């Protein structure tokens, strides 16, 4: 069974009658059946409804031919959904036992837009409960494992989503990124991960973690697929008041990419650092201008993040008070409790000014700094994680060590800017390596363009995990 490597290729296979949408779905479900017990990436499979959608796709294609893509630009695009995404009549748990038997009565905006464009939803993926975590180990339904090596974490919190893409359980997946929850697992699993500008895609219907940082985003095999999903879901929906419509910036022939010395300090693992240098020279050899920039405030981003994020978490989780949804607060696992307590503390009278207000002030400064630097360059290149994937259990007992895994990703969330994680190579241990591009607000197109150009010249793409 030949499964598509990207949507472009799928369309070609369908057009040449080499496969059908039902056959593709068969292929994915077969693989899930065979391999998912090893990696634990799905919580709920949507077999029945996905077959219904796939049959409809085949019917529409046989009736309309290529014209079908005018009406359904993503016809038959098989997508998995992080279990934070509300989908009508589908169990939605946020990987927390608190919502163990909760079925959403409505679709999130992202889901309804992808549905309207013809996507097929194959299932709901595992993640750290409430998206709290960097390794996938905080799920109340057991950790997801890294398909490149089952002893390693896949990265979190959107662990199952990243794994489902690299395992060819689906063509793409949705994730959420509050402090790196898309980019980190994308990086650890070797797939493309997009964290869009805050306010580009509606968050309506996606279980909230920290509202001022949360972004709806995607995992895909190529930046082009990520781009298609982004364009299908972005824009004002009348439900999320923070969404704005912005006309994308014009693309250029030559881009200037900034590299901040703060991102190449001694804290970075040598393999990650060397790979970043290799990517930079590849870019340089292919017509990109590299410029040294400085982002001295970046180091404070993680402190700011661990004030604002728990504050908003404590507020957003207040609704799970035991009155509705069937399970009381004792079902919260330690990480959620830790953040609720921390957040409640920083918002308390007498502490609010010292913590929250101060963090918001520093946040403003970080935003200013990024705005200033991004005036000089088209994008900033940075590592996603200071290390390649780490082992299961390695940091689980040390929350602070775990929090530091996000050190290079949180800044984009603090500043609300878009970021794209791109796989580029493998480590000596056969684990994925990659980097991220940070861009100007609402300039996702520039990031896709740079990534696209890089993908076409990179000779060391990690490829896919071999599940045997």
């Amino acid at each position, binding site marked *: 069974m030949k499964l598509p490597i990207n949507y472009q290729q799928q369309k070609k296979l369908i057009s040449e009658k080499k496969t059908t949408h039902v056959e593709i779905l068969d292929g994915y479900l077969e693989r899930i059946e065979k391999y998912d017990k090893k990696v634990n990436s799905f919580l709920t499979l949507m077999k029945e409804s996905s077959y219904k959608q796939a049959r409809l796709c085949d019917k529409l294609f046989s009736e309309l031919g290529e014209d079908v893509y005018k009406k359904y630009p993503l016809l038959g695009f098989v997508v998995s959904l992080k279990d934070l995404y509300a989908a009508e009549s589908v169990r939605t748990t946020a990987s927390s036992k608190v919502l163990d038997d909760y079925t*959403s009565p409505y679709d999130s905006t992202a889901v309804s837009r992808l549905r309207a464009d013809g996507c097929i939803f194959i299932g709901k993926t595992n993640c750290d409960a409430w998206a709290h975590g960097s390794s996938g180990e905080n799920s109340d339904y057991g950790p997801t494992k890294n398909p490149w090596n089952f002893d390693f974490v896949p990265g979190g919190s959107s662990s199952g989503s990243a794994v489902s893409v690299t395992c060819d359980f689906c063509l793409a997946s949705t994730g959420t990124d509050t402090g790196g929850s898309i980019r980190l697992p994308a990086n650890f699993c070797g797939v493309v991960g997009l964290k869009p500008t805050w306010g580009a895609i509606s968050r309506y*219907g996606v*279980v909230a973690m920290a509202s001022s940082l949360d972004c709806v985003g995607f995992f895909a095999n190529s930046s082009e697929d990520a781009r298609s999903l982004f364009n299908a879901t972005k824009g004002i929906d009348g439900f999320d008041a*923070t969404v704005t419509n912005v006309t994308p910036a014009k693309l250029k022939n030559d881009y200037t990419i900034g590299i901040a010395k703060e991102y190449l300090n001694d804290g970075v693992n040598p393999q990650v650092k060397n790979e970043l240098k290799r990517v930079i020279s590849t870019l340089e050899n292919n017509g990109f201008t590299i410029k040294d920039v400085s982002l001295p405030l970046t180091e404070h981003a993680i402190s700011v993040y661990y004030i604002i994020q728990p504050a908003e978490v404590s*507020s957003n*989780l207040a609704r799970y008070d035991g009155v509705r949804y069937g399970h009381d607060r004792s079902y919260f696992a330690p990480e959620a409790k830790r953040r609720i307590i921390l957040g409640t503390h920083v*918002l308390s009278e007498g502490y609010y000014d010292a913590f929250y207000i101060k963090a918001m002030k520093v946040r403003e400064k970080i935003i200013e700094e990024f705005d200033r630097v991004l005036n000089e360059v088209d994008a900033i290149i940075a590592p996603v994680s200071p290390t390649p994937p780490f082992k299961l259990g390695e940091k689980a007992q040390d929350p602070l060590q775990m929090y530091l895994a996000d050190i290079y990703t949180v800044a984009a969330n603090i500043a609300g800017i878009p970021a794209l994680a791109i796989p580029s190579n493998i480590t000596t241990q056969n684990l994925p390596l990659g980097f991220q591009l940070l861009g100007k607000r609402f300039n996702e197109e520039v990031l896709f363009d740079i990534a696209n150009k890089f993908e076409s010249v990179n000779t060391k793409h990690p490829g896919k995990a071999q599940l045997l």
Partner: protein
Amino acid sequence: MKKINPEYIPIIGLEVHIELNTKRKMFCRCCAEHFLQAANSNTCPTCLGLPGAMPYPNKTAIENTVLFGLALGCKINKYSKFDRKHYFYPDLPKGYQITQYDLPFCLNGKWESPDGKFYQIRRVHLEEDTGKLQHKNIGDKKMSLIDFNRSGVPLMELVTEPSFHNPDDVLAFLKDIQTLARYLQISNADMEKGSMRLEANISLTKITKQLGIDEKNIKLPDYKVELKNINSFRFLKNAIHAEIVRQTNLLSRGEKIKQETRGYDEQTNSTYSQRSKENVKDYRYFPEPDIPSIVIEDETVAIIQKRLVESPWEKRKRYIKEFGLSQNYAQILTSDLNRGAYFEKLYRLTKKHHLNTKKVVDLMINKNYDQKFPTPQGLVLDLLKTIKTQSPSDEQLDRAVSEVLISQRKAVSDYKSGKENALGFLIGAVSRKLSGKGDAMTIRDKLTESLGK
């Protein structure tokens, strides 16, 4: 009512909640009607606080709050925002209420009492209403049920400075606030339906007699008692009075007054403790991250300003000045926008037709003539017809007067010896002679003229 000890002066601040009558709820598109609706029929993910749901602010509700603020002479904040106020209660599905904390839409307004005193309004802000709990027996089980139809209905909150010192001004203020909401057509402000809710904060302070009651000399006490859940103006007035008496007694005995929330029992006409406020709740306010801060440009304010109408208190002043009405009549006529408009038309028509204005206004207010006649024109036409057919000729009047003066000698001599009320008796007698024709004023004039001879 017991007398209030003059040594202490009550300090009263008010909080008034008014539900706006917008078609849609504050943060979703659900129908905002919740009175007599099937439970939970007007709900959606947002007002149920379901996982993933988000608020989308209702522009009309914001504009109507600004309009209300403008009518109270408030300054409109150019930059404002919504905040989250956290507390746990079953009728609050998100665990927090979206409200406004430090940047409300409207600040620093004022209200003029009937006797010309100005009272300061601290702020007017906008928030969402909560759901409603119903405690019922189902079968043999006691159940608490929640109806979320009211959840997310736009709720405007007005807060005054603690500057009221007597229950009468409080009542006059609240009535005017209710009338204003109705004038502006932003709420029915119905106490029975809960679309207007009152809270009063009361404390007492000692005054230095020599200095007298002057705002400058009043020191705010270090406690306040909150009167809550009172659903009529009259009960609030009684409750405030009862609370002042209670606090006075405690203070006179040298006792300290507890900071708490109290309710009012109309049976015993006394207040009772509901919730101790000794441990002040920490609501952990912080800016609502799901709603961008709101910018209200001067141009927007100017557009909303065009919807302003004359406030009830301005109109009342004008009625007294322009039409020579008593305070009481002015109050009655301004309490209803339509009645006021009817009156103004009627007034002009009576002038045009040389009718006795005072008498016509009496007919309108005391005999509800405006309800009998849908238009003032109709009322005036009817009056003109009645006067024409019913006025006695001069000859008939002369005859009746002289007959009465002869037949009622006792009354005539009483009047001449200074008993003024004998005149009323004589007027009645003449009127009877004329079988009800003729108006009292004319008869009176004729009688006094004849008696004076």
